[in-house]
């Protein structure tokens, strides 16, 4: 079989991402971030995000082809995120990718955004190994494994039984971990998105200064809940306006990291998996990485540019689906803002039967 060259497009939120995966390896990953555009509002403005995606999508694709050193003639498949996400934003990348696939007569692979995050494991290296050169194909995480996705929009634990076969073990009942980082950062006056800034400030503080109660203690399941922690920070700052901000940041970060790690460890014990893949923007958090290294799990973290939203992970997911013999999708797929990952687990054959 000819080596596959897959274009992957993601416009689910506020980043315009196009990546290229050749023979299973990421050869380009271009992301046009809209962070600066949304900073003034302290959050993502959906209409502005859609407009921005539309105005940059073609240049982002051109840059990705250049970076990959391929032309459209080399491309064998087109993949794009069809959900979940902001519907107007999703529509831009999805429709653009469909137009391109249609015009060139290429097979089209619709990808669930979270399946993309899971597949970023294919570009991951073992935590602790040097990021450079450590990602040969044999070192990639192949299912089954446990996957923790912690981003600005999602916090979930998945049982990844095989490519295309995912079971959700638990999820956040309220705020996502990244969202909690962002909200706490705002309370601390750190701007948007505040996760990275809060992480930096926390490094200089005492994580035991303010012992926040860990959420959902004693639960049997594997859910998360972070809005209470955010409220606790807010109450604390009201009562003690001169509290040391670095200490508050460190204590807050400690509570989130402990909650993520402890729940993940219980899920690992329940499933019997020894390998954990961590994806989503919060995977960049240093404290979380350190803490995970102390566990007996083999932890794989994609490089930062694959951990946050990007197009290469969508192409990786398409690659994994094709390798696993799952059906390609077709061009009739619609942008779907609310979409459980279990729906993407099914192949087209199965969904036709049900």
């Amino acid at each position, binding site marked *: 079989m000819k080596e596959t060259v897959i274009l992957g497009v993601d416009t689910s939120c506020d980043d315009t991402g196009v990546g290229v995966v050749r023979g299973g390896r990421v050869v380009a990953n271009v992301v046009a971030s809209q962070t600066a555009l949304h900073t003034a509002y302290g959050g993502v403005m959906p209409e502005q995000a859609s407009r921005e995606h539309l105005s940059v999508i073609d240049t982002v694709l051109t840059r990705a082809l250049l970076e990959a050193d391929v032309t459209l003639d080399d491309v064998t498949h087109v993949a794009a995120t069809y959900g979940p996400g902001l519907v107007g934003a999703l*529509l831009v990348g999805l*429709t653009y990718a469909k137009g*391109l696939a249609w015009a060139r007569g290429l097979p089209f692979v619709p990808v669930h955004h979270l399946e993309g995050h899971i597949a970023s494991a294919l570009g991951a290296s073992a935590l602790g190994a040097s990021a450079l050169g450590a990602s040969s194909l044999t070192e990639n995480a192949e299912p089954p494994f446990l996957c923790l996705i912690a981003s600005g929009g999602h916090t979930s634990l998945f049982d990844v039984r095989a490519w295309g076969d995912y079971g959700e073990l638990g999820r956040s009942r309220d705020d996502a971990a990244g969202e909690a980082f962002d909200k706490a950062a705002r309370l601390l006056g750190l701007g948007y998105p505040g996760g990275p800034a809060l992480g930096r400030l926390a490094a200089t503080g005492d994580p035991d200064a303010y012992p926040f109660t860990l959420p959902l203690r004693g639960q049997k399941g594997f859910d998360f809940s972070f809005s209470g922690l955010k409220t606790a920070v807010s109450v604390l700052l009201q009562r003690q306006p001169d509290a040391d901000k670095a200490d508050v940041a460190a204590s807050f970060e400690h509570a989130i990291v402990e909650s993520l790690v402890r729940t993940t460890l219980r899920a690992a014990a329940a499933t019997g998996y020894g390998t954990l893949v961590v994806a989503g923007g919060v995977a960049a958090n240093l404290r979380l990485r350190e803490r995970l290294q102390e566990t007996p799990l083999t932890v794989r973290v994609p490089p930062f540019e694959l951990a946050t939203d990007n197009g290469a992970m969508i192409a990786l997911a398409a690659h994994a689906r094709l390798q696993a013999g799952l059906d390609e999708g077709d061009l009739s797929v619609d942008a779907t803002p609310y979409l459980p990952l279990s729906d993407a687990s099914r192949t087209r054959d199965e969904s036709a039967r049900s």
Partner: protein
Amino acid sequence: MVYLGLDCASPYLALALYQNGVLARFCEEVGRDHAGRITGALDALFAQAGLTPHDLAGVTVGVGPGSYTGLRVGVAAAKGIAQGLDLPLRGESSLLALAATALGEGRPRGVVALDARRGGVYAGVFRWRPEGITQEGELVKGQRETLQEQGLPYFEGIPPDAAYLAQCAARGANTVTPLYL
């Protein structure tokens, strides 16, 4: 030289192929479902003409005004098609495409309007000439009643003429700027 015209800014999904005359048309009222219908409609259009996308020499898309989501679907699809085949892409006002449906030799001048919601309309005065249709003056946001009393034929709620857009593609690429009004 075969050209493609498309417009998704109104409740219609309008597509056409043009080469010295109309080769094929697709125009259906789809409400808000342009995204779900567009590739199927493109297939039908090309099958009708017995052509493939590789026969194309250029694309024109209606850039609005109209539904934000609709016009974005049209522009996104057109960008994907044009870039996929390395074709020149042109953007033209969607009102121009409406004017092409409304006007002709027997009725060369009229007001063409589009529902702007909240009671108003976006409208422009257009003039047909054998060499093409042009807009006279600015696009205005106004009240139906006032515009209807101008003594000119008034058109609203008509389907766009995608073949006219396709014909414009012969003029080459321009900067495609969506009209978010």
